[in-house]
């Protein structure tokens, strides 16, 4: 049983790491602001979610596990709202320039 839990942790945490890598590559390689924002917000939440999922069996009590999930939910909410605000700021910033949507 212990081995199964460890294996689960290793799998989830490495999957989370892969998503962080995807977020970084997405942020560096994508052509314009909004696509970068999309790549960043999706992947870093999923990355954090998988890391938290992987760490859950390692937690001693239920309270600790709930705290971990709480952190992930807070990060989820924060990133979602922030992505909307930054996207609107980016759109407004480039709406004035001729040539339409940000390139």
């Amino acid at each position: 049983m212990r081995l199964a839990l460890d294996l689960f942790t290793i799998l989830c945490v490495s999957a989370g790491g892969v998503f962080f890598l995807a977020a970084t590559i997405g942020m560096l390689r994508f052509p314009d602001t909004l696509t970068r924002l999309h790549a960043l917000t999706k992947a870093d939440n999923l990355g954090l979610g998988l890391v938290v999922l992987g760490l859950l069996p390692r937690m001693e009590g239920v309270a600790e596990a709930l705290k971990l999930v709480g952190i992930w939910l807070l990060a989820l909410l924060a990133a979602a709202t922030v992505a909307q605000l930054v996207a609107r700021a980016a759109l407004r910033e480039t709406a004035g320039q001729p040539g339409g949507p940000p390139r």
Partner: protein
Amino acid sequence: MAEFLVVAAAFVLLTVGAGLVRILHGPAEADRMMAAQLLGSGGIAVLLLLAVAMERPAAVDVALVLALLAAFAAVAFVKGRSPSGAGDPEA
């Protein structure tokens, strides 16, 4: 097991560090803010991994505070960008 978690934390930190390049030559202000946002999330993941690897439950609370501050940083950015300062970029 703890070694794996430390290695994973180092990997996430390196990944986020590579993401900071976007701050250097991000054309738009929003790109620079995004890199800071990724640093916040990456920092939370690293803190959680290290908290479990080194059996320090206090680091979980530090990650909680970092999650809060990352959100505030981005809201401050948006408030600074909007003309009226009210925070609604379309206002």
